[in-house]
């Protein structure tokens, strides 16, 4: 091969034979020159086959070997399947009155989790509520991430006046108590799933923006960004190809926790009666069960458990992602 013919040193007899392919570690020492039987490992001859091809799989492996994260994934998968199956198992409107009120769980096999004060099926409500919670949580997070990453990236990358203006904007949002802002936004607009989602995104993007800005400010100074500039890369290319992929790990971790908090916010809104009145949601189920909590506590406990498990699952996933993606916690990087 051409590569190996390149000589390192010229001249002396006992030159370091780093580049020769015919390394024979056990060859008899040449008289007159010491150390010929010892060879420094050289980049060009050392086999690295066993260390290769594990770049991308490694994070996944760390993530899946974490029992908490695995538990979170399983729970979230069950909830997602339940949400998807809801229209199949309970095709009708879950707000319809189907049986006599206050059936306790297990009392009637047709309604395994009983019925509420109006005679509505609790299981149907929880399954349909899972759909609302997950879609609102995920959509609000995606929207918040989109706005937050854009604002944070522009502020962190360009700095200067752009940074000053965008940071002021972020600060305006951060000084308003987020739940109060959320309630005001939903109260002004009609409470539909879309407006609730948008309102949650509006109160949650500043966190992402600040995180993205901090990451961009740090990564902007890295040598490989300077190297990219020295190669004539434009701003957009540097932002999207060089900096953003390196800023992703903390953003991914944050987004899983953001989904959890969006679900909590949606539930809280519904609990206060500010959710979409035509859609059943875990929060609204708790809200309507609140009046009869002494006599029929299961009406608040069951949707409450659904919220607890979903949020717990998302937080466990966030922790697992953090362990897998954060270089400070994984010893290999």
């Amino acid at each position: 091969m051409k590569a190996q013919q390149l000589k390192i040193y010229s001249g002396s007899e006992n030159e370091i034979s780093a580049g020769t392919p015919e390394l024979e570690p056990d060859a008899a020492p040449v008289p007159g020159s010491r150390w010929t039987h010892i060879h420094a490992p050289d980049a060009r001859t050392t086999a690295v086959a066993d260390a290769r091809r594990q770049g991308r799989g490694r994070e996944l492996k760390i993530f899946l070997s974490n029992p908490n994260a695995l538990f979170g994934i399983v729970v979230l998968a069950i909830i997602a399947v339940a949400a998807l199956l809801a229209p199949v198992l309970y095709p009708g409107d879950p707000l319809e009155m189907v049986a006599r009120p206050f059936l306790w769980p297990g009392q009637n096999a047709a309604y395994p989790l009983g019925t509420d004060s109006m005679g509505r099926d609790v299981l149907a409500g929880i399954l349909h509520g899972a759909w609302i919670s997950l879609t609102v949580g995920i959509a609000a997070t995606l929207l918040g991430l989109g706005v937050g990453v854009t604002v944070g990236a522009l502020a962190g990358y360009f700095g200067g006046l752009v940074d000053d203006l965008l940071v002021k904007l972020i600060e305006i949002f951060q000084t308003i108590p987020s739940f109060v802002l959320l309630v005001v936004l939903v109260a002004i607009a009609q409470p539909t799933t879309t407006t609730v989602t948008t309102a949650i995104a509006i109160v949650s993007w500043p966190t992402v923006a600040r995180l993205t800005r901090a990451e961009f400010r740090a990564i902007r100074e890295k040598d490989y960004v300077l190297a990219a500039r020295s190669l004539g890369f434009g701003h957009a290319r540097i932002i999207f190809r060089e900096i953003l992929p390196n800023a992703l790990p903390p953003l991914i971790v944050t987004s899983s926790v953001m989904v959890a908090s969006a679900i909590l916010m949606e539930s809280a809104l519904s609990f206060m009666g500010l959710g979409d009145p035509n859609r059943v949601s875990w929060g609204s189920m708790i809200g309507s069960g609140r009046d009869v909590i002494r006599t029929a506590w299961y009406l608040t406990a069951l949707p409450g458990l659904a919220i607890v498990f979903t949020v717990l699952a998302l937080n466990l996933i966030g922790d697992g992602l953090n362990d897998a993606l954060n270089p400070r916690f994984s010893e290999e990087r």
Partner: protein
Amino acid sequence: MARLLEVHNLSVGFGNAQPVKGVSFTATPGEMLAIVGESGSGKSLTALGLMGLLPRHAKTGGEIHFDGRDLLKLPEKELRGIRGRDIAMIFQEPMTSLNPVMTIGDQIVEVLRIHEKLNHKQARLRAIELLDLVSIPDAAKRVDDYPHQLSGGMRQRVMIAIAVACSPRLLIADEATTALDVTIQAQVLQLLDRLRSQLNMAVILITHDLGLVAQWADRVVVMYAGRKIEQGLPDVLFETPYHPYTQGLLAASPRLKADYHYRDGPLTEIPGSIVSAAAELGCAFRPRCPVARSACGSSVPALVQLSAEREVACPYVPAIAEASYAASVRR
């Protein structure tokens, strides 16, 4: 030969400080020009200034003529077309100069696609050729490796492959081998030397390693505190250094002697340290200079051209004193 790069009186300032105070030098195609000096002498800022990569608040002055165009007057967009295609740079730290989340192949492909307008497939084939050119074994397989799978020496070769991807006419190697151990250093310089002759590029080697300069450079510029203080061909310059600072530098570098080991006696040093880049009246080397006189504090010594390649900025160097005496006698 026609000059590829002509730098006239380049200066870089940050606020009140002026770390580079008017540096002039030239480079011709196929030449390896070394810029030497200790840390803080303004070498790296000069290099970044050439590329137009200084931070926005830096004030640059002077002229940089590259191929007939003044780089300091070009708009950012045109400069971007020159960076990477006509002028490329290799940085000091191979461990951090590659994007950790992209394969080395993709990083080479990206440069080729920007500047050479190749499609992905052609660019990939060219990337493999380039890795082969910089002596990476098994290039076709290695092209899909991530930077963390390579050693420092190999990463620096990848950096060189990226830098020479578009056959630049000027390559700036800013301490390109400082972070590498000596055997790898020799390999990398040999590679640079080979590419220089193959691609007929001018190479600016920025370093503080005089051994490298003696072995590889065609011409040497010595910088001190933001100024060029001496220039010459390496053989001549190392044989008879004129400027007291160059003399001190050479005296301070350990050398091999048959019956003397550098641990046998105290190391030679230049007393003091490089003065801060802030305003210093007169010669910046005066506080450390063994032959300083009171006149050194009043004005900055001018560079005097002694021959085609030789320039020195110290009026008390005997050769200059003789030259100026001869000139005055003739008058």
